[in-house]
C-alpha cells in the first residue's frame, strides 16, 4: 500500500503523462516495426492512450490528497476538467475518422499520430494550468506541433504555404505573448494567475506595467483564438491543412485558446476598463465580418474557417458574459456550447474528409454534389450539423446559442447580442448553401464517387456520435446545467 500512497501526489499528472507517453510509444513502435505496421494500429495506440487519459481524469477526483506534487503548476478545476474531457473525447473521434484519410493522402501515420498527441498535450497544458509560464509552454507545444502537421503533405504547395504562414505569424505572436508574460512577472513577481488577481484587488503594485503586460498577453492569445484583427492566418491555414488537422484546429486548438482567454479575463477582471471595450469591438467585428466573409467564399474549407471564427465569437460572448456577471451566470453555458460545437464540427469534417481528392486539399462547393448517393448517413450528418449551426430549434446548436444569448442579456451586453443576431442571420445563407449543394443531384457533375475514400467503422461511429450529441442535447440539458458544481 505504501507504493500507492507514494504515488498519490502524482496521480493528477496521469492524464498528461499518458498523452505524452502515447506519442513516445508510437515513435518507438515506428522504430521497431517501421512502416509495415498498419495505420490502424497506430490509431488504436493513440485512442487507447487517450482513453486511459480520460479514465485517469475521471478517477482522480475522488482521492483525498494531503500533498499534491506541482499543485501550483497543474491543478485543473472542475470546469477545466470538463474542457479536458471534451478535448480528449474529440481527439479520439478525430483519430477514429483519420486513418483511411491518411492512407489516401499517403501521410506517414507514426509522425502524424505522435505529433497529434503532443499537440493535444500542449492544448491540455493550456487548459489545466493557471500558471502563465505553463500556459505559454502549452501554446508553444501546441503551435509547433500544428505548424508541422499543417504542412505534413509535402507534395501539396498550398499545404506548405499554409504551414509557413502559420509559422511566421504564430512565431510573431508567441513573441508578443512571451513579452506579456515577462511584463506581468516583472511587475507582480509571480506567474500564478490567482496571485496576480489577488495583487490587482489589493492594488499594492504599480498597475500600469501590468496593464501593458495584459495587452501583450491578450494580443498573443487572441491570435490563437483567431479574433479580428488577428484572424488572418485562419482561412489560409484551414484551407491548406489536411482535413483532419482542419478539424483539429477548429475544435481542440480553438477550445484550448478559449479556455486560456477565459482564465486571463477572470484574472484581469479588475482592470475591466482597460480591455472591455476594445475586446467587445473585436468580438463584434469577429462575428459580423467573419460571417460576411464566409458568405462570399467559393471553397467549403475556407467558408468553414470563417464559420469557426464566427463561432469563436459566440464562445467569447459567452465567456465575457460569464466574466462580467460571475455571481448570476453558470459556467456550464460555455461548456454546453463548446461541447456541441466541437462534436458537430468533428462530424462535419469527418464527412468532408471522405470527399477531398487525393492530391489536393481544395474543396469547392461542386465537390459536395452526390453526397446522398455516396453516403446517406454522411448527408444526414451534414444536414443536422448545418441546421444546428444555423440554430434551428430544438437542435443542440440552438440550445447553445440560446444559452449564450440569455447570458449576454443578463450581463447587459446588448451590442454583442445584436451583433450575434446579425451574424446568425447572415450565417443562415452560407450554411444553407452547403445543404443545397450536398442535396444537389446534378447529372453533369464530373466528380465521381470513386475519388472518395472508403467508409470505415470509425466513419460511422463518429457520425452517429455527432448526430446523437446534437439531437439529444436539449433533452439532457437540465442535468448539465450545474455540472461544474458552482
Amino acid at each position: 500500500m505504501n507504493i500507492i500512497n507514494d504515488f498519490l501526489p502524482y496521480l493528477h499528472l496521469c492524464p498528461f503523462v499518458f498523452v505524452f507517453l502515447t506519442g513516445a510509444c508510437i515513435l518507438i513502435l515506428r522504430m521497431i516495426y517501421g512502416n509495415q505496421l498498419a495505420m490502424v494500429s497506430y490509431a488504436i495506440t493513440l485512442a487507447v492512450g487517450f482513453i486511459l487519459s480520460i479514465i485517469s481524469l475521471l478517477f482522480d477526483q475522488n482521492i483525498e490528497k494531503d500533498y499534491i506534487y506541482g499543485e501550483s503548476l497543474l491543478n485543473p478545476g472542475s470546469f477545466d476538467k470538463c474542457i479536458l474531457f471534451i478535448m480528449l473525447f474529440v481527439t479520439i473521434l478525430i483519430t477514429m475518422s483519420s486513418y483511411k484519410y491518411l492512407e489516401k493522402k499517403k501521410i506517414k501515420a507514426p509522425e502524424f499520430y505522435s505529433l497529434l498527441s503532443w499537440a493535444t498535450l500542449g492544448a491540455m497544458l493550456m487548459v489545466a494550468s493557471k500558471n502563465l509560464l505553463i500556459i505559454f509552454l502549452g501554446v508553444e507545444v501546441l503551435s509547433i506541433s500544428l505548424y508541422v502537421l499543417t504542412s505534413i503533405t509535402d507534395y501539396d504547395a498550398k499545404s506548405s504555404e499554409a504551414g509557413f504562414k502559420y509559422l511566421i505569424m504564430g512565431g510573431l505572436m508567441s513573441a508578443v505573448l512571451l513579452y506579456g508574460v515577462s511584463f506581468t512577472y516583472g511587475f507582480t513577481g509571480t506567474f500564478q494567475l490567482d496571485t496576480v488577481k489577488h495583487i490587482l484587488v489589493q492594488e499594492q503594485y504599480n498597475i500600469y506595467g501590468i496593464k501593458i503586460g495584459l495587452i501583450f498577453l491578450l494580443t498573443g492569445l487572441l491570435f490563437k483564438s483567431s479574433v479580428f484583427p488577428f484572424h488572418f492566418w485562419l482561412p489560409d491555414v484551414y484551407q491548406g491543412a489536411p482535413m483532419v488537422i482542419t478539424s483539429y484546429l477548429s475544435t481542440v486548438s480553438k477550445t484550448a485558446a478559449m479556455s486560456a482567454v477565459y482564465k486571463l479575463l477572470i484574472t484581469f477582471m479588475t482592470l475591466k476598463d482597460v480591455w472591455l471595450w476594445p475586446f467587445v469591438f473585436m468580438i463584434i467585428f469577429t462575428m459580423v465580418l467573419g460571417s460576411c466573409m464566409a458568405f462570399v467564399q467559393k471553397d467549403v474549407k475556407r467558408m468553414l474557417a470563417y464559420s469557426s471564427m464566427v463561432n469563436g465569437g459566440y464562445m467569447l460572448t459567452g465567456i465575457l458574459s460569464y466574466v462580467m456577471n460571475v455571481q448570476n451566470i453558470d459556467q456550464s453555458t460555455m461548456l454546453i456550447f463548446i461541447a456541441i460545437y466541437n462534436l458537430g464540427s468533428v462530424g462535419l469534417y469527418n464527412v468532408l474528409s471522405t470527399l477531398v481528392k487525393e492530391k489536393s486539399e481544395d474543396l469547392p462547393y461542386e465537390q459536395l454534389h452526390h453526397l446522398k448517393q455516396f453516403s446517406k448517413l454522411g448527408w444526414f450528418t451534414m444536414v443536422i450539423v448545418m441546421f444546428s449551426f444555423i440554430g434551428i430549434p430544438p437542435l443542440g446548436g440552438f440550445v447553445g446559442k440560446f444559452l449564450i444569448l440569455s447570458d449576454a442579456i443578463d450581463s447587459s451586453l446588448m451590442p454583442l447580442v445584436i451583433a450575434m443576431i446579425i451574424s446568425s442571420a447572415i450565417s443562415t445563407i452560407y450554411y444553407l448553401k452547403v445543404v443545397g449543394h450536398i442535396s444537389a443531384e446534378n447529372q453533369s457533375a464530373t466528380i465521381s464517387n470513386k475519388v472518395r475514400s472508403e467508409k470505415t467503422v470509425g466513419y460511422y461511429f463518429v457520425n452517429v456520435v455527432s448526430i446523437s450529441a446534437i439531437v439529444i442535447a436539449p433533452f439532457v440539458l437540465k442535468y448539465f446545467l450545474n455540472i461544474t458544481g458552482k
Partner: protein
Amino acid sequence: MVQNIFPNFNYFDITGPRIENNPLFQFVLFITACTVIYGWGYFENSSKRNYVLPLLILFGLSMAGLVIANHLLWLYFFWECTSVFSYLLIGTYYEKKESRESSLQALFITGAGGLSLLLGLLLLGEHSGSYYLSEIQLQHFNLEEPIWSTIVVLLLFGIITKSGLLPFQGWLPNAMVAPAPVSGFLHSATLVKAGVILITFLAPVFQEMPLWENSILLLAGLTAWYGAFMALLQNDLKKALAYTTSATIGLIGFASWTEAGNLVAFSWILAHGLYKSASFYFVGIIEKKYESRNILKLRKLFSIEFFDKIIGFSLFFCCIGIPFTASYYAKKHLVDFYLNLFQQNYYAFVLCTIWQSLMLINYFRILVFPYIGTRERYQAMHESAEGFQEKSVKTISIWMKVIPVVLAISSVLSTFKLSQRVTIHASDVGIWEYFTVAVYGLFTLLFFMFYRYHHFVNALGKKLYTEILWKWCYKNKLRMIEKIAIMQTNIVQNGYLRYYLTMFVVATILLLGGSIYFYSETFIRKPVTEILIYELIIVAMIIIAAFMSTITRSRMASIVSLGAVGMGCSVLYLFYSAPDLAMTQFLTDTLIVVVMALLFYDLPRYSRLSSKTDKIRDGIIACIFGGVISILVLSVTDAQIYTEVMDTMLKKTIPEARGHNVVNVILADFRAIDTLGEISVLTTAAIGMYGLLRIRTKKGGDES
C-alpha cells in the same frame, strides 16, 4: 435568466390553459386534414408525394402547437418549426433554381425575424416576470419605460417578417413556386397568419402603447392597400392570390392590435383561411388540368369544363362575402369595429369601401374572369398567329375536386359559430347594409374600367414585378451585400503574408498606443547617468546599420548589417555591466548571421514585389511601431517594479554562494539544474541543425 426559465420548465406542459375551446386549434387541424387529402390527389403519380405529405403533417402540427403554446419558448420553438418546414415545402421542386432561390429568401427573411422575436420574447419574459403567456396577458406594466419600446420593436420585427407585412412582404409572392397544396395551406391559411395571431395574443399587454398601435396601423394599412393594388397587376393566378392574401393580412393586422379587435381578427382568420385555401386549391386544379395559370392564356382556351366554372363562381361568392358565408360575418364584425374605432368617421368608411371593391375585382379576375366570355376566344381562333389550339384536358384525381367543395361548404357551415356572436357586438345594422350596397356598386364601376384596360394593366404589372420588385428590391440588395462582402474580403484578406503581418503590427500599435496614451502616468523619465560620447556613437552605429539592412540590394550586406545591430547591442550591455548578457547576445547574433547566410545561399535573387508607395507606407508603420515600443519601454522603466525577488537574491548571493555576480550565481548555483537543462536543449538543437546541414551537403554532393 437560464435559471429563471429552466427549473420551472416542463417539457410536456406545452399548452397550459390555452387549449380549451380554442377555435384556431380546431381550424388548423381541419385545414391540415383537408390539405393532406388534397395533396394526396395532387401528387398522384409523382415522386414528390412522399416528400410533401409528411412535411405538411409536421407543419400542421407545429402550427397547431403555435396557436396553443403558452410558454414563450414553446411559442418560439413552434414559430421556428413553421419557418423550417415552410423552407422545405417551398423548395419542393428543389431541382429548379427558382425554387431554391425563393425558399432561401423565405427562410432568410423569416429566420432573421425569428431571431429578433427570440430576443424580444426573452426580454418580455424577463421584464414581465413570467414566461407564461396566460400570466403575461393578465398583468399591467408601466409601458413608458424604454425597455418596453425595445421589446415591442423586436417583437414587431419578427411579426412583420413572418406575416409578410411591408416592407418585408417580398418573400410571399415568390413563395408561390411551391405546389398548390403548399401555397394554399402555408401561404394563405396558416403560416402567414402566425404574425397576426401573435399580435392578438399580445394585444392585451401592449394595446395602450402608442408605438405598438401606430406602427401596426401604419404597416398593416399600407400592406392592405399595397397588396390590393399589386394583385390587380398580376397575370399569374397564384401570385395574384398571394397579393390578395397579403392585403387581407394587412387588414387583419389593422384590427388585431387591440383587444377589442380580437373578434374581428379571429373571424377573419377563420373565414379567410377557408375561402383562400379553397381558392388556391381551385387554382391548383386549373393548373393541373390546363397546364397554365396565366390569366391571359387561360382566357384563350376553349374548353373550360363546367365543373370548374361552377367551383370558381361559388368560391367567388365565398370570397366577396355574400350573406350566410363566413366572410359575410367577418366583414360585418369588421365594419362594426371600424365604426367604433374611428367614432363614426366616414372617411375611414369610404376608404374601407374602396378597398373592398378592389379586392372584389381581384377575386373576380382570379376566380371568374379567365373562364367566361367568348370575344377573345373567337379572335384567337380566326386571326391567331400564335396558334392557340385545343389542348387536351388532363384528368385529375377525385380528391382534388372534393376538397374545394368541402371548404366552400364549411365556409357556409362555420357561420353557425361566427353568427352566434353577431347579436352581441352588432351596433348599427343600417351602416352595414349601406356598406354592402356601396361595395357592390363600386365594384361594378371599377370592373368595367378594368375590363376595358386590362391589357395595359397586365403589361404594367409584369414590368413592375420583374423589374422593380424582384430585381431591384431583393436581388439587387442581395447582390449589393455580396459585393460589399467581396470587396471587404479582398481588402481584409488578400492572401499576402506581408500584408497580414502589417495588419498585426498595426493592431498591436493601436492597442499599445491606446493603453499608453490612456494609462501612462508619467511620460519619460530622465536618464539616471550621463550619456557618454562613445555610447552615442554606438547608438548611431546601430541606427545606421538597421537603416542599411533595409535599403541595401545585396542580401549578404543586409545580413551583415543585422549582425552589426546585434553586436552594437551587446556592446551596450557591456557598458552597463552585464557581461553575461552581452556574451549571450554576441553568441546568438553570430549564430544567426551564420545560419542566415547558409539559408539564403540557395534562395533566388531579390525580386521587386512592392512599389514605392508600399515601401513608404511600410516604413512609416515600422517607424511608428518602433516609436511606440520605445515609448513603452521608457515609460515602463519609470514604473515601480516588483523588487522582492531582486532583494532576496541580493541578500542571499554572498552568504550562500560566495559569489559577487548575482546573475552568475543564479545561473551556476541556485538554478544549476535549470542551466543544465538549457545546455542540453541547446546541444540538442545544435545536433539537429548539424543534421540538417549534412542533408544539404549530401544533396549538394550528389548534384556535383
